[in-house]
């Protein structure tokens, strides 16, 4: 991943304040600064470019709507918490959709491929991440793309720091096994 250069905390605070004043330019800069990381976050978890595009758009619209409620000092945590909520909604909607499909036409489900062919060739990591449970995959991906410390992650997830660390560790261990044992 080509990560976007992380802005300094002061730059982020100034940018968020600009957005809170309703400046178009501020939001434009926000899109430039965060879109790659957020897109990476969504892509790793959904494994689907169209869904990632949609989630990214939806997230930025939510940012415009709710930026007033954000404390500029904790913007990154606020942003990724919102991204996480969107992803959880996406998972729930997907499960409902799959259940409906399953009930309607069982044989159709066997024809559904989880990823388009192009993605299959290029993204082994995403496919292995999706073999983890959604919660574990999410915490690993968030840790990598958000730039948040474990303490911040634990706060976002409302769980003790030790629990958060253990979950990440167990998830990474499993991911490593999956990656090493994969024939891709």
């Amino acid at each position, binding site marked *: 991943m080509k990560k976007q250069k992380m802005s300094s905390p002061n730059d982020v605070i100034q940018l968020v304040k600009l957005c809170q004043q309703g400046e*178009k330019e501020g939001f434009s800069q926000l899109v430039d600064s965060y879109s790659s990381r957020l897109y990476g976050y969504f892509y790793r978890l959904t494994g689907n470019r169209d869904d990632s595009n949609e989630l990214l758009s939806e997230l930025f619209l939510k940012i415009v709507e709710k930026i007033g409620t954000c404390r500029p000092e904790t913007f990154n945590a606020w942003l990724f918490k919102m991204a996480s909520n969107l992803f959880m909604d996406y998972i729930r909607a997907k499960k409902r959709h799959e259940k409906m499909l399953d009930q309607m036409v069982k044989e159709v489900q066997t024809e559904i491929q989880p990823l388009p062919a192009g993605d299959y060739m290029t993204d082994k*990591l995403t496919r292995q991440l999706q073999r983890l449970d959604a919660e574990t995959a999410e915490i690993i991906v968030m840790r990598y793309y958000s730039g948040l410390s474990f303490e911040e992650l634990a706060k976002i997830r409302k769980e003790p720091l030790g629990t958060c660390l253990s979950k990440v560790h167990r998830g990474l261990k499993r991911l*490593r096994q999956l990656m090493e044992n994969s024939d891709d």
Partner: protein
Amino acid sequence: MTEFKNENIDELLSKFFSPDQAEQIKDDFASADSFFEKFPAPNPPPQILAEIKQRTAQQLENRNRISWTTVLAKTAAVAAIVVIVSAVMLLNFSQKDSIQYTNDKQQTSLWQSDTDISAFEAEITQLKNELLAINLGEETGTNGILTDRVEQVELEIIETENTFWKG
């Protein structure tokens, strides 16, 4: 996974894990980093970014417009409430005034009517007393005159009663 976090990962791990476990975990973190480097996620398509910028700008304009409209609507609502409350108060006040005026009028006419009735009643009482006195023979004299007076009194009573009931 340790390169850009503002935290001391060694210190953090030492709080929760034994040194051996901490080493293992650091090793797993490093391998995860290498996976993410080796399999980079794609970047968002430029047209999607342009679309997002356009949509956010539009939403921002709508939000600003809505906030102005909201302020106007709220002001209009407050003004309307003030007007309605004032109108209701004014209406109540004038109704009270009218009721008081009517009451005064009714009381005056009742008082006048009471005065008339009491006059008639006094007259009737007087006539009755006179009749009673005559019947008891308190007024002695010639039968002819007495009878005339009795008849006269009776006529007066009848006349008075008629006048009374006619109002």
